[in-house]
């Protein structure tokens, strides 16, 4: 269910920001940004800080690879808003056909062995966290994944196991493909904080 106060903003400042950014974007400001502006001192600031670090901070993974991981978590959690939003960002830095092959079946997609092994860890973490064992982590490392890559990737997955859930529960409006494209440019420029 959509919460009206989240959609319209809970302060003069946030309502002005929603209007100004919508005009600059040339589209309705996506609900993800409206949530980020709302009741910010509750979890918003802490969530934004960790998301900015995980998605745009230093990492052995490229921004596009991290956005693809976010897209995959969204797919596993059946979140169409986040699939559309993060696929649109990922394909600014990788071949669209590769991203779509991952969404169809990452096991057979033309990606590196270490990304494939990492996605297997993230899939278990997302869908069956109680089954995540050190053996699966060791298997990923045997495929060439470093410990740092695993920590960075599991941070991305943890965050999108939060974000996809509120996108679904709060019934985020699904933008058009053209609107996702516009928002992707903004997210690459402005980030998550």
């Amino acid at each position, binding site marked *: *269910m959509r*919460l*009206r*106060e*989240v959609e319209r903003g*809970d302060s003069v400042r946030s309502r002005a920001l929603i209007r100004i950014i919508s005009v600059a974007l040339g589209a309705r400001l996506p609900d993800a940004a409206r949530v980020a502006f*709302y*009741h910010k*001192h*509750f*979890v918003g*600031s*802490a*969530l934004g*800080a*960790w998301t900015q*670090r*995980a998605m745009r*901070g*230093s*990492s052995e993974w490229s921004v596009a690879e991290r956005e693809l991981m976010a897209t995959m978590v969204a797919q596993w*959690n*059946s*979140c169409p808003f986040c699939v559309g939003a993060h696929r649109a960002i990922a394909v600014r830095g990788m071949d669209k056909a590769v991203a779509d092959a991952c969404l169809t079946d990452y096991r057979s997609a033309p990606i590196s062995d270490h990304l494939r092994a990492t996605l297997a*860890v993230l899939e278990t*973490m*997302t869908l069956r*966290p*109680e089954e*995540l*064992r*050190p*053996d*699966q*982590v*060791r298997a990923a*490392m045997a495929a060439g994944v470093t*410990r*740092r890559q*695993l*920590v*960075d990737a*599991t*941070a991305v*997955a*943890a*965050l*999108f*196991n*939060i*974000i*996809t*859930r*509120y996108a*679904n*529960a*709060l*019934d985020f409006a699904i933008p058009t493909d053209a609107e996702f494209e516009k928002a992707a440019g903004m997210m690459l420029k402005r980030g998550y904080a």
Partner: protein
Amino acid sequence: MSTDTDARHHDLAEALRATVAGEAGVTEASLRIATAARAAGGPPVDQPYDTLARQIGDASYRVTDAEVDAVRQATGGDKATFEIVMSACVGAGLARWDAAARAIEEATDAPA
């Protein structure tokens, strides 16, 4: 061996966990903490919070307007409802972070 990257993620995750139980909320902190735990597979909480927390944890795409509205009726406002929803989401996400951190730590013999 633990790295700076690990420590930074760890600190940011713990800061997020602390906000759920923090003083910035309009709902009772004990309800937010219990809701977060419920979404992570923990013990039941009072209705209507229990149904929403469990659904967010297990299958958020199945959350209905009625489940969210029941919480809105019980809490009396959007801000409180938002806090319950976000607490459940953070609980489910951090439970997965904790599971991954344990597996990495056991596999590499170093704290994550």
